[in-house]
């Protein structure tokens, strides 16, 4: 209802605009602000990336079912959002992921097997964030958005924005979900980023769910519009459209690198799987919705486009499928072989400089283990 004094509620404002370059049917459409020409190689590359990360995800889910992983957070349905965002990065850009960013990890050169460690319970993140410019997964909802903002403030202080040097100017990406948008940390990240005009892109995958809670529980307005209140631009992109996500992210990242400040990108998508392997979504959502979103599959539309335009044939599709099989087989093999950590190492890892107390606990632990060996 329109209030006689305050006017219409914002939720009644015009329908949210959705940037799209490739329709679910695989039809190439154009957008006045975010259009790009994609080469055939690029398009085939997107297809390959998405097929492979979907396989990675399916394989990890199966590994969990077989007891090889304690848990897995599936990315099923969010391949385009993650590949689009991941491929728009330059090497010097830095990414702060949640726990579901397997597709972005892929783009950053993190080996899929390394992603399994956290979920298998052998480590809490096994890659070197500085080697891949990809921070460790963050499970505490929203915390990483502040880290991204602070990192971007560091980039500013290093003078690595707005120089015009494409190899130097740096952007930072904060990944988070629709649920996370409610956290204090996330909103504080918006405030800081706006206040300092930090070179950070807030990339929210609105997959419609935060475990069992629908998006409507978190926000009455489309999320991207929140950015306006904080003082920076926001845009909603079809998160199942890898071309549009890539194009929008490329523009947002470029804005950041040029020193024009933060951008909020809402990738509108859908969590096709369960929240994690311990979740049972039949308790809270209708299969109708899932079926409806199946028609918007991110991979099928790229395949349709490639085939229709003679950019890919059966042989290409089979070759990628074969590559996926090899990846799956390797993940199974190497997951089994992931070694358990040595318990005594936990005492050395707490500080840069080990404290005498922890050294003593470590020595006591060693003696304790040895006492069993003596007994035999």
């Amino acid at each position, binding site marked *: 209802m329109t209030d006689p004094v305050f006017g219409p509620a914002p939720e009644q404002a015009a329908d949210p605009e959705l940037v799209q370059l490739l329709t679910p049917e695989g039809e190439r459409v154009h957008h006045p602000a975010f259009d790009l020409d994609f080469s055939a190689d690029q398009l085939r590359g997107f297809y390959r990336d998405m097929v492979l990360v979907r396989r990675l995800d399916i394989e990890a889910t199966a590994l969990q079912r077989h007891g090889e992983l*304690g*848990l897995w957070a599936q990315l099923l349905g969010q391949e385009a959002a993650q590949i689009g965002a991941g491929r728009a990065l330059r090497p010097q850009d830095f990414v702060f992921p949640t*726990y579901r960013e397997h597709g972005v990890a892929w783009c950053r050169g993190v080996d899929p097997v390394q992603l399994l*460690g*956290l*979920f*298998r*319970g*052998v*480590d*809490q993140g096994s890659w070197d964030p500085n080697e891949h410019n990809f921070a460790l997964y963050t*499970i*505490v*909802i929203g915390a990483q958005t502040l880290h991204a903002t602070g990192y971007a403030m560091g980039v500013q202080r290093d003078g690595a924005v707005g120089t015009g040097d494409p190899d130097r100017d740096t952007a930072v990406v904060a990944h988070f979900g629709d*649920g*996370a948008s*409610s*956290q*204090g*940390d996330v909103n504080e990240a918006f405030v800081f980023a706006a206040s300092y005009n930090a070179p950070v892109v807030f990339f929210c995958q609105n997959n419609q769910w*935060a*475990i*069992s*809670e629908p998006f409507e*529980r*978190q926000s009455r307005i489309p999320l991207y519009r929140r950015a306006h209140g904080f003082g920076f631009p926001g845009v909603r992109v079809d998160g199942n459209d890898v071309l549009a996500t890539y194009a929008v992210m490329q523009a947002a990242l470029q804005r950041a690198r040029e020193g024009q400040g933060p951008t909020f990108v809402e990738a509108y998508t859908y969590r096709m799987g369960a929240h994690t392997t*311990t*979740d049972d979504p039949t*308790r*809270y959502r209708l299969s109708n919705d899932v079926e409806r979103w199946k028609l918007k599959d991110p991979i099928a539309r790229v395949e349709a486009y490639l085939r229709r335009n003679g950019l890919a044939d059966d042989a290409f599709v089979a070759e990628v499928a074969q590559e996926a099989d090899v990846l799956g087989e390797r993940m199974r093999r190497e997951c089994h072989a992931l070694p*358990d*950590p040595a*318990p005594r190492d*936990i*005492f050395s*890892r*707490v500080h840069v400089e080990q404290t005498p*107390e*922890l050294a003593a*606990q470590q020595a006591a*632990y060693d003696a*304790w283990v040895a006492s069993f060996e003596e007994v035999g």
Partner: protein
Amino acid sequence: MTTMTLAKALNAGLRKAMEDDDKVLVMGEDVGTLGGVFRITDGLQKDFGEDRVIDTPLAESGIVGTAVGLAMRGYRPVVEIQFDGFVYPAYDQIVCQVAKLHFRSQGRVHVPMVIRIPFGGGIGAVEHHSESPEAQFVHTPGLKVVACSNPADAYAMIQQAIHSDDPVVFLEPKRLYHSAKADVDESAPPAPLWQSRVVRPGSDVTLVGYGPTVSTCLDAATVAAEEGRSVEVIDLRTLSPLDLVPVQESVRRTGRLVVVHEAHVTLGVGAEVAARVTEECFHSLEAPVLRVGGYDTPYPPARIEDAFLPDLDRVLDAVDRTFAY
């Protein structure tokens, strides 16, 4: 009399409290339609409606902060924190607001809130899902802190905590949610909430635990008995206030005390128990009070959590060591 899991007992206790007092509200992430990730609130929204069983936005500070306002308006919010490691976004609200309102308002404002936290490890979870943050709350004046260890207590204690006019941090041993099964007599008069309890009498050494470690202590007592040692086991139940009367009475007989918790040993509840027992029972002690707990490291990856958690061997070893003095 009904046989229930600990999870079911909590569910039944919450249901009873909601039936008895329509000011009781349940709120938290996924507590409504889903019934919580552990199903502790299963079916409550269906029966009591969305106004009383509230699926909140994903923001712990928001959950606890709005619960303060609801409490000031006369409600009795029961807040669910989804996992121990996710209570910290609400830490400021709990420590600076919930804990201090009664004091600051000279008693004019009551905050009859229960903050339920599934705590402890042993479930093979990823990081932040296996923590034991109790000492942080025990260290905070203005909060009361309790931990249940079995279905019958869970059923009674959750209701008593809700009836309390003071804020209560209510710790639930998540590893026992679906494994601990026992008869619960819903009509039995409950034991007072603020009392610890001897759960197995003995005469040679006293073992003290709470929450998930009570069963570890009981197992240790069984094994020790086979070796001819009589172990008395005490379930603290309440961590703030601490009820050490049964512990001191026990130590005066046994002369030996071992405290067991999953939380880091340094400045844990065991440290407080040791200090107070030493002050009160110095001349009865045959050995220093020993503590068995998590090491002073972050909770490790799940595959090696057994090395971190106090287990039967480590408890029995501590028992042996008290006899070495």
